[in-house]
């Protein structure tokens, strides 16, 4: 599970929109693309990124490719936040100590 990758994948507004859509139910590409102001190939590209970030899974039903949320990917988001605070607080600590020294 790569939390950093997951969060970076969601840094894009279109991918967040797709991720949000899939929170309601699994969908085929055609349904995902519906209502989005981008081409089908562009949607597919975004889906690829989300899939690589393990936020969504691809399932084949008959001739249809169905995308659904990867539950572990959602958990990865929480892990990401944990990592984010680690990074932010390490920055804070370094800056506070530098500021103190310069006093």
């Amino acid at each position, binding site marked *: 599970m790569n939390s950093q990758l997951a969060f970076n994948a969601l840094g894009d507004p279109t991918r967040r929109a797709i991720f949000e859509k899939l929170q309601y*139910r699994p969908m085929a590409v055609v349904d995902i693309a519906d209502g989005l102001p981008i081409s089908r190939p562009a949607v597919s590209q975004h889906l690829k990124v989300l899939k690589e970030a393990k936020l969504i899974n691809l399932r084949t039903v008959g001739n249809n490719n169905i995308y659904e949320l990867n539950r572990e990917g959602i958990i990865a988001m929480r892990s990401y936040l944990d990592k984010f605070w680690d990074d932010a607080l390490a920055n804070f600590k370094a*800056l506070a100590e530098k500021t103190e020294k310069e006093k």
Partner: protein
Amino acid sequence: METINLTSIKKEFLVEASQQTAFEVFTQKIDLWWPHSHHIGSSDMTEMVVEPRIGGRWYSKHTDGSEANTGYVLTYQPYDLLVLAWQIDGDFKCNPDLITEVVTEFISEGPTTTRVKFEHKDLHKLGNGKVVDSMDQGWGEIMDLYKQFVKQTII
């Protein structure tokens, strides 16, 4: 609806700085330590701001002139305690109805030693509320997995 266990992220560490310095850097200089790659704005972030008072805004400024709210100040108690409301939900949107608390305590342990106790509480609220309400089977499974995960990681 099933109640989800309270979840939080906790961090505790020592800073080689006075309590006042630690508090001031945390609040007034947040722009200098906040990772600028992390924001929910519509363009690159130029500045992160916490207005130093109860009810003060917590927001980011962006290159296109826009601002994006992260939350607001719940408690401003120099130099002991800062409680911020984090209102960014699981969809990376600022949700005025959402409050998750980011509590930072500054405990003086010497002239230039401060213990920082940090906690981001109520993380279970960050999920998509609409989906929680719908309680479809898929989400139920997600919650089960989430609770297992939380049990493993809770401090």
